[in-house]
């Protein structure tokens, strides 16, 4: 049977995301947010989610809609500050102790996800050594320098935004849309990609930026 990872809609793609799922969401700096899938996940209404996303509060990401809908129990991110002077819904929940939060240096966040997809359970990094953020974490000296031990991050589902796909799930990304998508796709049991277009012919080998091996479902953005 020919491999074909297209599904009919974002709603169908997230229909089996369960309560308590760990969900990665791509996007950074205004680009690469898997917003159709995030909204579908909000409509799906699975509760007690752990959200793994670079920023919990970026205004162009719809991650905040999951938080506002009360679906999120825990956030792992590198940026958790709302832009305004007042408190965002996330910050209010955090203040009230109603949402868990783990903040990592962005490079550690990225590497933990890469490790999660690469079969590396833990690694040492210089980032954050000697700071409050890594207080209590195991440290070790290699070659006269101090490092922090960090463990891999994996997820049940990754929601990833890309540009083009083919039926095999191969992806290309436009410019800075790339960011966390490729690593997150490797670190989840189920990766769903939201793309501008699924082309009928295979993407040329040298243009594939993420092999379809890492992608289980494809949705065309705006097609829900």
């Amino acid at each position, binding site marked *: 049977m020919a491999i074909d990872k297209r599904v009919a809609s974002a709603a169908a793609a997230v229909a089996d995301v369960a309560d308590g799922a760990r969900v990665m969401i791509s996007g*950074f700096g205004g*680009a690469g947010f898997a917003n159709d899938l995030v909204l579908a996940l909000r409509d799906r209404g699975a509760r007690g989610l752990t959200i793994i996303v*670079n920023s919990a509060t970026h205004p*162009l990401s719809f991650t905040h809609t999951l938080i506002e809908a009360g679906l999120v129990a825990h956030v792992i991110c590198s940026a*958790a*500050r709302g832009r305004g002077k007042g408190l965002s819904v996330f910050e209010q929940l955090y203040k009230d102790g109603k949402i868990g939060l783990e*903040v990592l240096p962005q490079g550690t966040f990225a*590497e933990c996800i890469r490790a999660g997809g690469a079969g590396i359970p833990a690694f040492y990094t210089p980032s954050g050594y*000697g700071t409050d953020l890594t207080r209590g974490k195991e440290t070790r000296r290699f070659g006269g320098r101090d490092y922090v031990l960090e463990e891999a991050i994996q997820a049940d589902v990754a929601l990833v935004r890309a540009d083009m796909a083919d039926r095999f799930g191969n992806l290309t990304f436009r410019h800075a849309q790339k960011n966390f998508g490729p690593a997150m796709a490797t670190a989840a049991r189920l990766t769903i990609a939201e793309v501008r277009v699924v082309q009928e012919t295979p993407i040329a080998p040298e243009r594939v930026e993420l092999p379809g091996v890492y992608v289980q479902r494809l949705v065309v953005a705006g097609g829900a």
Partner: protein
Amino acid sequence: MQPLNRTQIAWRAAQDLQDGMVVNLGIGMPVHCSDYIPAGRELVIQSENGVIGAGPEATAEAADADLVDAGSRRITIAPGGTVIDSAWSFAMIRGGHIDVTVLGAFEVAANGDLANWDSRIPDKGPLVGGAMDLAASAKSVWVMMEHNTRSGGPRLLDACTLPLTAPGCVKRVYTDLAVIEVTPEGFLVHEVLEGLSHAALQARSGATLRFAPDCGVLRAPDLTDED
């Protein structure tokens, strides 16, 4: 002379960026360094979202929502540029492939400790981003900041009072009043604003300053504060 405005500080730091360097410019004030690189110097601007060879900010017509830097500015790609993913971008940073990062800061200590990530706004969520990775692993960390806080307190200190971004990492500090090197023996001033005495600069600092034998004058062209 007036203290430098923030754009002038960026200009001053930019004069020290050398040909061929790979440079990461922090969000906010430091990104403006790229506007003032001396003519004829070609270097590679790395943005930690993966743009390797970032060009100037895009014009309104050319702006592309998918082509942004780590500060969400819509930018261009310079000739020879490319885009890599975040895991690779930070592998590049952590692996020591960034020659210079220019970062904003709240405080710098005489031993090079940097505090730039936690402004301790009550109840606001923590914002770390890529600063810890850059501070820990760039070959050279430069800081640009006002010499004093809004209330007049010093930002150059014997020891930071705010949570650290990374210990012992800062090599140079560019302020509105001076250019300061961080040496194993502490702060060494290389340039001071015209008309400001060494004693006056010392009075506005929270750690002992030494002055280089050839300590010069800090000057910048007239530039409007962009920030």
